[in-house]
């Protein structure tokens, strides 16, 4: 394992978890499994260290914290002072220029990413990626474009470890207040035609012969949150046959807006149209089956179809984890059927 400040996602795997954070390491794992994930790169905590030490920010932040503590800051009571301190730290991190020997490689990576996508400046999501989950590791900035903005937002992510909540969390857990290394993922934005999930098992009955694909237009959040009735397809995994399809009335979808996402109307004509083509469904199943075979257990995976690419290059994966499902107990259906039979005699 080579310790670096910047990695391409495809260089990563589980072992890099502590270095680049869970989000990045997971995406690297997906690449290892042969899945296509959104292109991008990761800044490790070494990059954070580099930034904080080379710029002298490390001492500066420590000094701010010490001063406040010396002045008798009571974290439970002095909410206003906490907010003020948090703001000052974040501002100083965001305002301090990136050292050139770090800005250079970041810019280089961003340039290559843009080339890969054949655009001048590719729009990216800049996300925090912590090794364990804690406050301040949830920041996500969408639609970030241009070298300068990319760098600014990386600093914003680093700064996000100094929100009041994050500071209080570290104090309560006996962690250093002024030292909060965190990984950052810079990933190309997907232009989602549609997105959703696949489970390689029917979770309610534990039928492992079948997979279920659910999706909606736009980004996957609407499917996961349950805000709309998504399209739902049941696929026989061995026969690779779509056995059932239910096209939901998809009134709303989630799209990118500004630096976040918004819920918007699905055009009337599309509301009752399937959000994925059959061949896309089958490709999604095919890939998910490979992942399932690799892990030897049913998977719960999130997919996105990117409208800029043509089939089958348009299917991207953003998440894969073991599926939670009710195990099919032997004879459960049989017992249920017997109970139903009994009802026949109880009219």
């Amino acid at each position: 394992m080579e310790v670096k400040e910047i990695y391409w996602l495809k260089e990563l795997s589980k072992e890099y978890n502590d270095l680049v954070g869970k989000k990045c390491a997971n995406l690297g794992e997906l690449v290892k499994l042969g899945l296509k994930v959104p292109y991008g790169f990761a800044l490790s905590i070494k990059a954070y260290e580099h930034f904080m030490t080379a710029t002298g920010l490390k001492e500066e932040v420590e000094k701010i914290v010490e001063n406040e503590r010396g002045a008798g800051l009571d974290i439970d009571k002095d909410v206003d002072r906490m907010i003020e301190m948090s703001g000052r730290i974040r501002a100083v991190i965001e305002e301090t220029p990136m050292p050139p020997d770090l800005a250079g490689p970041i810019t280089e990576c961003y340039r290559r990413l843009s080339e890969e996508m054949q655009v001048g400046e590719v729009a990216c999501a800049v996300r925090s990626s912590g090794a364990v989950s804690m406050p301040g590791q949830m920041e996500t900035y969408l639609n970030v474009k241009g070298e300068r903005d990319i760098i600014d937002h990386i600093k914003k992510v680093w700064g996000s470890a100094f929100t009041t909540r994050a500071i209080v969390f570290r104090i309560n857990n006996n962690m250093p207040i002024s030292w909060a290394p965190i990984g950052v993922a810079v990933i190309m934005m997907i232009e989602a035609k549609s997105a959703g999930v696949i489970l390689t098992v029917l979770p309610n009955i534990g039928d492992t012969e079948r997979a279920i694909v659910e999706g909606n237009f736009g980004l996957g959040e609407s499917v996961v949150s349950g805000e709309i009735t998504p399209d739902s397809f049941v696929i026989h995994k061995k026969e690779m046959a779509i056995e059932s399809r239910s096209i939901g009335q998809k009134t709303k979808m989630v799209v990118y807006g500004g630096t976040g996402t918004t819920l918007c109307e699905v055009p009337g004509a599309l509301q009752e149209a399937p959000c994925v083509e059959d061949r896309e469904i089958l490709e999604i199943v095919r890939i998910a089956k490979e992942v399932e075979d690799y892990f030897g257990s049913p998977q719960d995976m999130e997919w996105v179809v990117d409208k800029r690419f043509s089939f089958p290059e348009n299917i991207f994966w953003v998440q894969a984890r073991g599926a939670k499902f009710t195990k099919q107990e032997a004879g459960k259906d049989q017992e249920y059927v017997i109970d139903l039979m009994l009802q026949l005699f109880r009219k």
Partner: protein
Amino acid sequence: MKVYDCVPGLEFDESADFQVSPCWFQDATHSVPPWTPMFGWFWINFCRHGMQYGAELLSLPTVKGWDWRFKDGAGYLALLIVKDPAERKAREERFKVAIKPFVDDFPGMWKGFVDEMVGRYEKLKALDLDKATNIQLLENFEEMINTTRRMWEIHMYMMYGVYTAFVLFEQMTKQLLGIDDTSPQFHKLTSGFDNKSFQVDKELFNLAKKAHAMGLKDVFLSTSAGAMRNALNASQNGQEFLKAFDDFMEKEGGWRMERMAEINVPTWLEDPAPAFNVIKMSLEKGVDYSLDEERKKHEAERLATEKEVLEKIAPEQRGWFKTILTLAQNSAWFSEEHNHYLDLYAHAMIRRSALGVGRRLVKEGTIDAPEDVFFIIPDEVRKVCINPGMFNLRPLVSRRKADWQGWCERGNVPMIMQEGFAIEDAMKGLVESLDPIALKVVVGTMPVVRPELKADLYGVCGSPGVIEGLVKVVWTENELSKIVKGDILVAPTTSPSWTPVFSLLGGVIVDRGASLSHAAIVGREFGIPVVMNVFEGTKLLKDGMRVRLDANMGTVYILDK
């Protein structure tokens, strides 16, 4: 008890039997025309025994089987309903365990029974009746009685189990899919299965192919069934064909009679005319197609329908729905196949064994003709069999024969009811029994008369489809020969031995029937429309009338009024 009683202990007796039930239903499917005394004895004793045995083994919560009485050659039945709620509850608990084998491994269970029965039949057939001693004859006869009793035990145990599953399936399709047993889609789900009865038909069809290949088509077409054997014997090819034909008849094809529930007509083995006729009809129709492929077509249609239907069912419901679907499909093919291994074969065994006794009684001067044995009952066989020469059964036979002729001329009433008891109450009782056999075979679905359809007859769908054709009214198998391709068969009910003719038919109209009666099951296998429960088809329709039947709607229209 009178000496002339045919079924001692189970002859209908108003004063006693109205206490059992205020209403007795005639089993019109099986006991019209009236039974001979010997067959009545077997049916009333052992069908009754089998039903109570089956209901008890399964511990059906609401019904303990049926009680049966014999009256003037007819079987009359009443349901033994469990009324006490506590008893029902206790039976429910046992039912849960008892029904399990049907859900777990129905085909395996059935195979065990088939092996048992075929073993019994082979053992019975092993005795050369004409060389046997009187004692051996009687032993064979007693063993045949045991075999028949066992047949009915298996028969009704299985039937109660599979019909319970079938009724459940019906209810589930109604709830989940909005279709009932009169819907074409429903039928497609339960047809297209290979089964023994189908295989026998297929063998006959293959014999027709063989005849065609051997250049015997002209012999078949120009010869009547009765003269067929002689005509075939005239050529070497014909002799070779007969060898294959007789072989098949002896092994399995010949152990059936025109009327399934009777023993007084020859088996195909004794008189192969019906089999020759089937081959003849196939040759007329042409043998350049494959029955197997036809069946596979239905199978493909079933698989497509299964898919279609499963799509409409929520994924989490599919597991158990498929379990029920499989059970219902088992019921469908079992309903057809059991006729071959149980009723047809066992009744042919009664006839074989009884005629063996009959020939001996004639030889020793006890009766006049072997067939007279059908007018005595097993107790009387026991009475005379070891020393026939010591007894004269002629007066008994002639009295019973006269009675029987009278029954046949007069016919029997469909119901015997206590005074003041209404038919509505009787039907209510049937429905309240929740007896799956009563619901699926005897009662059926009552047709709804819809005047806006302006039909001449209203029935229910036994097998989907719409067809026009010429009516042929058929009461007995002998009349089947008048059927030509495309005809509409009109009958009171149909019998398993009529199955081969279904390949010629355009459609079927039966007076009585439910979704698991013969006409419906076979109609579905052959993919021809069947309208059932029209009640007055044989009365209203005449040979040569042109009709349109729309089985989907359950309607029949006379086109040339």
